[in-house]
């Protein structure tokens, strides 16, 4: 299971997206979506390594990006 960031249009029904993510083996986080640019929003999800492929054909999903770990540089 990996962490993912899913970009969808800002008018996308997030409950419907939650169902779609669950249908392909993922779990959408409860955190509020993060607005991005004009007309987009980003939600977090846990999901299988191929979540991007599994959601690629799903209507309204614009991008699926990895949510990767960061390290302090001190």
């Amino acid at each position, binding site marked *: 299971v990996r962490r993912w*960031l899913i970009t969808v249009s800002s008018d996308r029904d997030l409950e419907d997206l939650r169902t779609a993510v669950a249908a392909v083996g993922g779990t959408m986080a409860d*955190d509020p979506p993060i607005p*991005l640019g004009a007309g987009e929003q*980003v939600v977090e999800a846990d999901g299988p390594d191929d979540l991007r492929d599994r959601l690629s054909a799903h209507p309204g999903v614009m*991008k699926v990006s990895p949510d990767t770990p*960061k*390290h*302090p*540089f001190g």
Partner: protein
Amino acid sequence: MAKVEALIEVEVEVDRALTRFMAAGVTLDAGRRQIEEMMPAGIAGTVTYRPTAKPIPMFVPPSDFRAPSGLEALSAFGEPAESGDVTSATQVLPVQADASALDELRARPGVRVWPNSAISFFPVDCRPFRPGVTVDEIRELLAVERIWSSGHRGEGVIVGVIDQGIDGSEYPVTGGFNRAGGQQPGAAAIDSHGSMCAADVLVAAPEAKLYDYPFLVPRSSSALAMFSAVLEHRRLDGTPHVVSNSWGFVAVPPKELDPTNEIWDLDHPLHRKIREVISSGAPVVFAAGNCGGPCPSGACQQSSIGPGISIHGSNSLEEVITVAAVNSAGDRIGYSSQGPGMFAQEKPDVAAYSHFFGNFGPGRPGGDGTPFDNGTSAACPVAAGVVALLLSRFPGATPAQLRDAVVDGAGGSAWSADTGHGIVNAGAAMELMEAATA
């Protein structure tokens, strides 16, 4: 009159020149005596020599000299047996001479005067690291006094620190963000990484205030949320004015396995959010990272160590100011990540100082369990503090104007993979901005 270091090349045929060259090194006096024998007449009183100086035989003269080339004789040196010694065409004499004497020599036929330039060995401060220095010494190196003397010390400027949280009882946290149930701004311990970053912003801009964006879950999503909060804060009242980021990746995944990883994908939401923040008028400063050679951080994976692969992700976006680390002597610190960047090539943009007693060290708030503020994590907020200081002097400056001033003020010299365009200098940056607005 001060003497100038120079190399004087004269036409002197010396038999068995290499043997004689080696003999000149046997005693200090031998080298000096050889130079004096070969020195053109009439300038003896205006020339001195370093104790180790000796003539250097040359076998291929400058093209406009009369002496024949000895290049052919050297071709025998590739044989696996001893070759005969050769005759010099010219000799190069290292001297210290009056400028007027050098001018006179330049006019003579058969004499050439060359510069004897200082050469840097680009020393690297590597484990064990050289000792730390005080904040006052760093302030002097940054030339902050040139701005402070005009009455500006970062007042009215707020720097957002996206990190692991700041101790607000020690440092001037006036706002920030966290998700519900998370750590509140200013609530971190004094020995936190974020408290170190806070201390280091204040090196150049001691009157700046801080917004604390505690980045306790170190993932893209947390960073994305923090930058989103920055944007919302800016929408509300135009603050914070600068954002400092001392974090990033320590591994590079293979592109074919992870093409949308933010190391490879410029359209990753985090990168786009950072561009939004910069577009809103706030400069964003990033640490280059600690995965440079020859002494990378132990956290770095092999895929991310060394030139060309150690500055990546948001830290290598063209729009941000990417900061490498040097010590107080201006030596690159041996873990500081090296360019070119994996997005924008000319990364780092600049270097700034690290290894000083800011939050950590003898008598400092964070104690001396950590010997001094360290990493490009310290260098980044030092540079962010310089940007804040410039903003207090030039309140309307844009991110691009500030970036240009910081880069050009660092010397604006040819870019290097180790330290970018040079070391941040607040005074020089201010003078450039003053000249631009005059």
